[in-house]
């Protein structure tokens, strides 16, 4: 990131950040800053809302209004912010445990409501802040301090969930390809409605070390080798896609946006009561 970009969009006095060496979250934050710049967001009219966890600390580094809330609740707080001041742009940053476990219910309903929020999940497949316990996106049989004999649950496909419950825009990116990530984040920010971008981030400190996946570079190489762009994936048969992660713009649909629908309701009610 250029110094000018950093000084405009980040609270540089708060750097260096708290993330571990090799963590992917800084790459995601960098892509978000570039996307914000490309879209031309007014930083005085932007609120970044987050929950609790490594990812959620990103809200504290962005140079706009920031709301670092309770674990899992970022979308619910963001709903209040957006409904109180619909003219503000509201971006929600969450980790995988934050969004899909403790905050799962809020995720489902924020997407279903199609409120104009951009939700970005930094998915590193573990609870990093508490030292690497398994999360809903940890792969089956992966190891964690709380799964020393292998994690028995299947991993949660958050993009599939978001699409199923009615998000207007769903995309998946990976830290190894920040340019593609920036493009997808730009489209998400441009959408009026609930947009969701899942970003595969790497946690070499906990997930990588415990599962003997090597360092950050090895984990980024793994992402490159195991991700398939959605256009190519459509031409592949299911056997070929086994063990692959599909990236790109996965879903886009036109649904009524909630604040617009609410504004219509208000004018309808006022019209009726005025008669």
């Amino acid at each position, binding site marked *: 990131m250029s110094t000018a970009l950093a000084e405009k969009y980040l609270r540089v006095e708060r750097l260096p950040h708290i993330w571990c060496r090799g963590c992917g979250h800084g790459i995601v934050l960098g892509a978000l800053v570039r996307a914000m710049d490309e879209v031309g967001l007014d930083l005085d009219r932007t609120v970044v809302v987050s929950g609790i966890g490594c990812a959620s600390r990103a809200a504290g580094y962005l140079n706009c*209004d*920031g709301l670092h809330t309770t674990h899992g*609740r970022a979308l619910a707080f963001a709903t209040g*912010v957006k409904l109180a001041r619909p003219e*503000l742009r509201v971006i929600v940053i969450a980790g995988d445990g934050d969004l899909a476990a403790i905050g799962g219910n809020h995720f489902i309903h924020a997407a279903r409501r199609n409120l104009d929020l951009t939700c970005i999940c930094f998915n590193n497949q573990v609870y990093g802040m508490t030292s690497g316990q398994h999360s809903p996106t940890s792969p089956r049989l992966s190891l964690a301090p709380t799964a020393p004999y292998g994690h028995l649950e299947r991993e949660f496909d958050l993009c599939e969930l978001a699409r199923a419950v009615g998000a207007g825009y769903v995309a998946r990116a990976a830290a190894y390809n920040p340019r593609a990530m920036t493009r997808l984040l730009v489209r998400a920010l441009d959408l009026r409605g609930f947009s969701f971008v899942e970003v595969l981030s790497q946690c070499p400190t906990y997930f990588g070390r415990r599962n003997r996946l090597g360092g950050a570079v090895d984990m980024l190489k793994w992402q490159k080798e195991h991700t398939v762009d959605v256009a190519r994936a459509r031409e592949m048969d299911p056997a070929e896609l086994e063990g692959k992660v599909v990236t790109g713009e996965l879903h886009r649909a036109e649904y009524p946006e909630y604040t617009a629908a609410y504004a219509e309701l208000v004018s309808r009610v006022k019209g009726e009561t005025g008669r």
Partner: protein
Amino acid sequence: MPVKPGARLMQGNEACAEGALAAGLSFFAGYPITPSTEIAEYLAEHLPARGGVYIQMEDEIASMAAVVGASLAGAKAMTATSGPGFSLKQENLGFAAITEAPCVVVNVQRQGPSTGLPTSPSHGDLMQARWGTHGDHPVVVLVPWSVRECFDLTLHAFNVAERLRIPVVILTDEVIAHMREKVVLPEAGSLVVEDRARPDRAAGPALPYDDRQGDVPPMTVFGDGHRAHVTGLIHDRRGYPAGPGPATEALLKRLQGKVDSRPELVIAEEEETADAEVLVVAIGCVARSAARAIRLARAEGIAAGLLRPVTLWPFPGERVRAIAGRVRGIVVPEMNLGQMVLEVERVAGGRAPVHLYPRVDGNLITPEEVLGSIREVARG
């Protein structure tokens, strides 16, 4: 202006909603739960016409979160719930306290614990209202005893919340919430409505927790150009996370001090306490029975008086202590197994014996029951 001016038959829950509208409520997030649901229903009907936002969230936790988010974005925000929902709201009530987000929570008490008796009154949440969320935090808790007072205290709750940037809790119960009384709501012009202080925008960006401006820093509302950072972590005046040390202590003491340093927040009403030999301390619907009981006692020649805490927290300890020094005993009838009595005993400090009359069968304490306790104390 009330939805319908003039005299009308009104329910406690509706009066809470009207009080909120009179205070300028602009955001309500709720979740259905007996016996508070009428508040949400009333506001779902009447808020949109006033340009306000009503939303039913996916759960109790989310509705509290949305209220705090809306407050930080400048709204006058409220939610309403009952026992099980009040338990769920505690997490984000604590967030409101540490982030100094003004908001109002109505808890229509029902018999607990857990699902309990959903349609029966109780005063089981008195300590939860004070200490329900973890950690030291300031809170003001108001207890109305009539439909009209539901209106007045909800308006007052918003004023206190806005003035001090704290969450304010209104504790009613199934009786007060569903009871209907004739009320005449005041004209809008006659009401005092307070709004939070905001930094002068012309002066440029302000710090979100600038304690140099006083113990209630002007509020840097989202979207006002202050680029404020708000966190549930212990923070410095910039809103940035702070570690253990003097800044942490200073923040927690400032927050608690917002209530502790303002004795004018304490409200209590007294009836016939000047010459009382027996003092009854009671709140809400129980105080209605107690008011009747002291009249019955006086008809029998027992000089009984009533002290009714309107602010349960901060508790009117000085008044109770003063009266305790000149009565034979204090009766505390409670619809729980003994909560407020602990505070009465503490402030009485042995100056008078304190007698608890508990009732937890899901029914209201009657005047005759309170009278029985008064007689026992009078007989010594």
